[in-house]
């Protein structure tokens, strides 16, 4: 099963269209950008929430402001790296390197996109039997899907495997 259908076609359209225009003009033309799509569904069984380790994956660009490098949010071609931080991280220890969304809401209340305390509460209340203490974070401005496939996803899979998770909640910003 392919992660991205027609990968070679997508890459050619990206490199000859959006990327070529950007390199020539220094400007974005999103009419030239091909959004990835799939035509087949993936079949997998559901999980028992009481007995399956869950991990949170966020694209809000969150990082530990005192210990980690921020994402390269000023890079027009995106940042494909990930950060990890504990689920138990105090919310005021995080900062967000991602300028493709307004930060008004997250500055008031980080749980609008990063529900660390809510997940702990759901675990304590019994809905979630097991929680990974590792949160995966990346900066969701990633126009090059091939780099997502070759850089971001392998890093996420490696962490997911190490953490022995059975389920993941994805919250794109």
């Amino acid at each position, binding site marked *: 099963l392919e992660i991205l259908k027609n990968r070679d076609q997508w890459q050619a359209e990206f490199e000859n269209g959006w990327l070529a225009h950007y390199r020539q003009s220094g400007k974005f033309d999103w009419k030239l950008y091909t959004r990835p799509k799939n035509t087949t569904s993936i079949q997998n069984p*559901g999980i028992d929430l009481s007995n399956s380790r869950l991990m949170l994956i966020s694209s809000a660009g969150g990082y530990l402001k005192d210990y980690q490098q921020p994402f390269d949010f000023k890079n027009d071609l995106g940042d494909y790296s990930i950060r990890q931080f504990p689920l138990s991280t105090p919310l005021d220890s995080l900062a967000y390197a991602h300028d493709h969304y307004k930060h008004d*809401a997250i500055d008031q209340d980080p749980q609008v996109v990063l529900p660390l305390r809510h997940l702990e509460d759901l675990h304590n209340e019994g809905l979630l039997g097991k929680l990974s203490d590792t949160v995966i974070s990346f900066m969701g401005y990633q126009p090059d899907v091939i780099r997502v496939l070759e850089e971001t996803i392998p890093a996420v899979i490696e962490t997911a495997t190490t953490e022995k998770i059975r389920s993941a909640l*994805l919250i*794109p910003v």
Partner: protein
Amino acid sequence: MARALEIQGIATSIISWNRAVTEPIMPPRAVYTKLDRGSVLGRPNDPVQQRRVLEAGIRQLEKDSPAESIRLNESIKTE
């Protein structure tokens, strides 16, 4: 990313305010809202709304994929 995780046997659920972008990638399990970029789970300082959206996304994980997506009427407008 969801598909890559599913291939590893990891069930995934996605919570999205942007159904027009998310739906074409055919995520295995999804919850769509009328919220906004930067306020994916709800209004700031409204933990009740945030929990409603979050729990809907988590509950999707119990379903076999491809699961019928859920559309919530949650928005940033105050009730």
